């Protein structure tokens, strides 16, 4: 599903990723681990096409991302759900609007927008906070809204960058349970984290990066 071949990403003299080659299969749940600055976020940015590699190829679902036109980039992103540490919710929109927004910009008919948004918010347990604004929610609730938005258009891949970085341990476990459940539906999940507790809890493969290089590809911890 996801392949990187000899990928290097340089920012001036600094190489955030160095000659990275890895493969993640369809339907896998994989942790991306490593210290701050190891290159976890950079790899996720390459997969979301927020950045382009300096060298090498990133291939997702058989498509070489470097060869996508701007329009194809947007079409590709519709197949990928993202979750960030800082939630990236729109403060001026309600919970319902934040989630349905991902469908609205795709031109989904309004009745389908409503139905699917409600379903996914119910699934993350926020059906009672539909009209609340993000700043009225706890950190865990905000992250659940972000997860709902990532899931609402039924993506093939979920990319999460330190999704529990701002949450306490209990909430972090709750969020991981959601990711595990998403994965059981067949969605490929890639979670960047440096929290060993979570890796142990989910008990899936982890890819460890160090200074932009592949340090080890672990099996179950």
């Amino acid at each position: 599903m996801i392949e990187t071949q000899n990928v290097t990403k340089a920012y001036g003299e600094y190489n955030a990723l160095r000659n990275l080659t890895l493969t993640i299969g369809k339907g896998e749940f994989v942790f991306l681990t490593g210290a701050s600055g190891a290159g976890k976020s950079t790899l996720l940015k390459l997969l979301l096409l927020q950045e382009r590699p300096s060298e090498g190829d990133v291939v997702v679902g058989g498509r070489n991302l470097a060869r996508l036109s701007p329009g194809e980039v947007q079409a590709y992103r519709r197949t990928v759900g993202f979750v960030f540490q800082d939630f990236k919710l729109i403060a001026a929109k309600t919970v319902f609007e934040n989630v349905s927004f991902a469908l609205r910009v795709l031109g989904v008919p309004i009745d389908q927008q409503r139905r699917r948004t409600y379903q996914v918010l119910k699934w993350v347990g926020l059906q009672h906070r539909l009209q609340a604004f993000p700043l009225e929610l706890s950190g865990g609730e905000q992250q659940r809204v972000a997860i709902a938005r990532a899931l609402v258009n039924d993506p093939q891949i979920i990319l999460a960058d330190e999704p529990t970085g701002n949450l306490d341990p209990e909430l972090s476990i709750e969020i991981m349970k959601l990711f595990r459940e998403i994965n059981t539906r067949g969605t490929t999940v890639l979670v960047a984290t440096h929290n060993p507790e979570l890796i142990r809890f989910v008990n899936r493969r982890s890819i460890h990066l160090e200074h932009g290089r592949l340090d080890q590809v672990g099996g179950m911890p």
Partner: protein
Amino acid sequence: MLGYAFEEALASLRRGGRAAAMSMGTIAIAFLALGGFLLISANLQRMVQRWMESAEVSVFLRDDISDDARAEVEQRLKGEDAALQVDFLTKDEALERFQADFPELADVTPTLGSNPFPASFEVRLRPGATVADEAAALATRVSELSGVADVQFDRQWLERVLSFIAGVRVAGFALTVVLLLGAAFTVTAVVRLSLHARRDELDIMQLVGAPFGFIRGPFVVEGLLLGGIGALLALLVLGGAYASVRGWLTPALSGLLAGEAASFLSFGDMLLLAGAGLGVGALAGLVASRSAR
């Protein structure tokens, strides 16, 4: 998608407040200048057109012209295609007309001893675009006839007035283009401001894979609305100004316009102005939205 673009653009204009109003004002000033030039030049042109249609060629005769030569001149004039009507004005009639037209100078004429005004033929010309050239040729031919002292063709100076009006119009358009460029830059700046205000939202739209039309649409519509409302404001101000001066302008101009009233911009001109406002605004919005990628 269009509904979303309008909804977001209107919300952005509400948020923009003073900056949006300033942008509309700049557009309005530019279009006020353009509309004003169109209005004034169209009426001036119509006025001169009327004068041209009633223009005459005056053929002044020498005092010692024989009856035969005069009859010859008259016959030649009546045979011309450009001539609609040929009237003979005797020396005495010319003097009487002068005294009637300039009563304050009526006392002067008896002191001259003899009547200085020549007899003349006044040739009313057939209206039409090509008659000016034909009449100019007529004037040249007639001036060579014996007994003809001078030929005056007042259309020549009218044509100079017309070319002056065309010049004024070109200058007006040039000024308008400069003003419109200024207005377009203002719209671009205002749209960029709203783009920065919605930076986070745009980032999220890009990440969820929103089509570029969806991302840029609201900014193009915002520019479109700024331009359109600005042009509409200009038309309203111009219409109001015209309505307030029409009362005293029409009697003043009725003589010059051969009894016709001064007229406001045609429907086509108004559509052109509104369309130009929408176009300039949308283009400026599109330019600004190109940074939303």
